[in-house]
């Protein structure tokens, strides 16, 4: 790129407002995809059976968690290894308010989101304040999640290891978010929540705060020398991330009618928040959703296939552990074949 020196125009001369290079249709395109996607998914319950739906719902819960996780770890660049903490806060806030105070889960969702955001911001602030980065940050968040788990197991108000049972109401109730077993509403509601979560990510990523967060992720020093309040930018990402994850937790309690410490705060939950995002593609809007859509049903599919396996495999029938082993193998293969995640890899192919 050898330029011949031309006398440069003074800075204040702005390009025309309708300059094609200024056009940025990204957000609009994402929104269209979102609308279409939701419309299509909304029809699923009509074709799914009882089990199909329960798997689909679990998948949706995964997806919401992953979308939340991705805001902090993908776009914010702070790898959270302790999102169980925020999912758990959601699940327990919902359970506690409902069981002990009869408060509607809808309200709990808001309370939980705020509470979890506050906690998340506090934790993140401490970690960043003390300059924890990379693996150290990740493990610190993990440690906090573990502490939450252990503390909950020792708190009488939260029934220690017993957890909470949601009372089964005789009839459907919107306010209490309870419907006939297998009602499509159990699918549509989390679908709506997911849609909102994705919408938030789309808007956030393009917002000032979102742009700042990504800049800080790429190069903290450069960002701060451009006048960006790096701490603030990061904490906003954390707050959104934790809030969304908490809502997933509230819904979990509602749908499963029972939540205990392990279901809410167990380290497995933290991992479940990460897997879809990584499989689908970290730091992308659709990666977590696609990842969840793949991983969620995967184990059930494998189990179903192996329950009555094709002839040549029949000798394997009923070997306990086989289904999980196969599932694990598939997981490994996906990651190796698509190192940037399904969405990330496909997008790269597309571009070049």
């Amino acid at each position: 790129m050898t330029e011949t020196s031309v006398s440069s125009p003074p800075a204040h001369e702005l390009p025309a407002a309708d300059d094609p290079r200024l056009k940025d249709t990204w957000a609009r395109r994402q929104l269209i995809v979102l609308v279409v996607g939701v419309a299509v998914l909304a029809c699923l319950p009509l074709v799914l059976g009882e089990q199909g739906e329960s798997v689909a719902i679990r998948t949706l819960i995964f997806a919401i968690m992953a979308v939340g996780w991705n805001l902090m770890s993908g776009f914010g660049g702070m790898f959270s290894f302790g999102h169980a903490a925020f999912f758990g806060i959601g699940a327990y806030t919902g359970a506690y308010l409902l069981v002990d105070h009869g408060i509607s889960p809808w309200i709990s969702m808001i309370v939980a989101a705020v509470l979890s955001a506050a906690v998340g911001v506090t934790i993140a602030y401490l970690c960043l304040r003390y300059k924890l980065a990379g693996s150290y940050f990740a493990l610190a968040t993990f440690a906090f999640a573990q502490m939450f788990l252990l503390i909950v197991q020792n708190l009488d108000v939260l029934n220690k290891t017993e957890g909470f049972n949601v009372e089964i109401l005789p009839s459907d109730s919107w306010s209490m978010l309870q419907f006939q077993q297998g009602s499509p509403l159990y699918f549509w509601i989390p679908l709506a929540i997911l849609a909102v979560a994705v919408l938030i990510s789309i808007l956030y990523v393009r917002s000032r705060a979102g742009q700042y967060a990504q800049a800080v992720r790429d190069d903290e020093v450069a960002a701060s020398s451009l006048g960006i309040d790096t701490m603030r930018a990061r904490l906003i990402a954390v707050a959104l991330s934790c809030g969304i994850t908490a809502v997933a937790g509230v819904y979990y309690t509602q749908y499963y009618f029972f939540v205990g410490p392990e279901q809410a705060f167990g380290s497995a939950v933290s991992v479940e928040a990460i897997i879809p995002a990584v499989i689908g593609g970290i730091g992308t809007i659709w990666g977590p959703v696609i990842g969840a859509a793949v991983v969620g049903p995967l184990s059930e599919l494998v189990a179903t296939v192996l329950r009555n396996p094709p002839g040549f495999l029949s000798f394997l029938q009923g070997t306990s552990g086989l289904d999980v082993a196969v599932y694990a193998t598939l997981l490994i293969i996906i990651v190796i074949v698509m190192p940037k995640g399904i969405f990330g890899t496909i997008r790269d192919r597309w571009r070049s």
Partner: protein
Amino acid sequence: MALMSLLEVQGLTKTFAGLTAVSSVDISVEDREFLGIIGPNGAGKTTLFSLLAGSLPPTEGRVVFDGVDVTGWSAQKVARTGLVRTFQLMRPFESMSVLENVTIASLANRSRKDARRHALGVLERVQLAQYAGTSSGSLPTAGLKRLELARALAMEPRMILLDEVLAGLVPAERAPMIELLRDLHADGLSVMFVEHIMAAVMALSERLVVMHDGRVLTQGVPAEVIAEPQVIEAYLGEDYA
């Protein structure tokens, strides 16, 4: 108080675990001045910039910018007062396009829409507009250098600290860059300029400061300064000129 220079540095000192990188430096830069800084490798030029821009906390001394004492302020706070630096080793936001890189800086005092437009304007000014859409990661060195500059300019600074913006540019690339810097200065930008390429230093600097072992060795009119034997001895080398 009486009208004072845009940047006042008094007794600025920075020590790293025993080693004194910058020791009691006093410099003052007038508004709209173009100050060149030269000095051997390790003289403390970059560290000085880091101290001024708040990237590093000083061990001692004061930094007063535009009448405000900014000593010990965080980098982001300093940057918002209109004192902006560039980096010797370029640090683009790799995940973003060139335009987005600059927009980030424009956002400092604009709405998102205007920022994007303003950023493009800046890119045009630094002749990087044709790369607006490309990802900053794959820019060649010359592009990256301009990007560093563009990002700083997008902050609309009063004063800009340029750390070796010409390093790594072939002579053919340098000319337009020098041209550009001259224009910017003409438009009223104050500049502190660290560079080892003497041709450029001489072409641009109104005043020249020579640093050595963290101290100000000497300063004054460029032509005179580079004639000083101690400067030749410490920096330029005999076979120069």
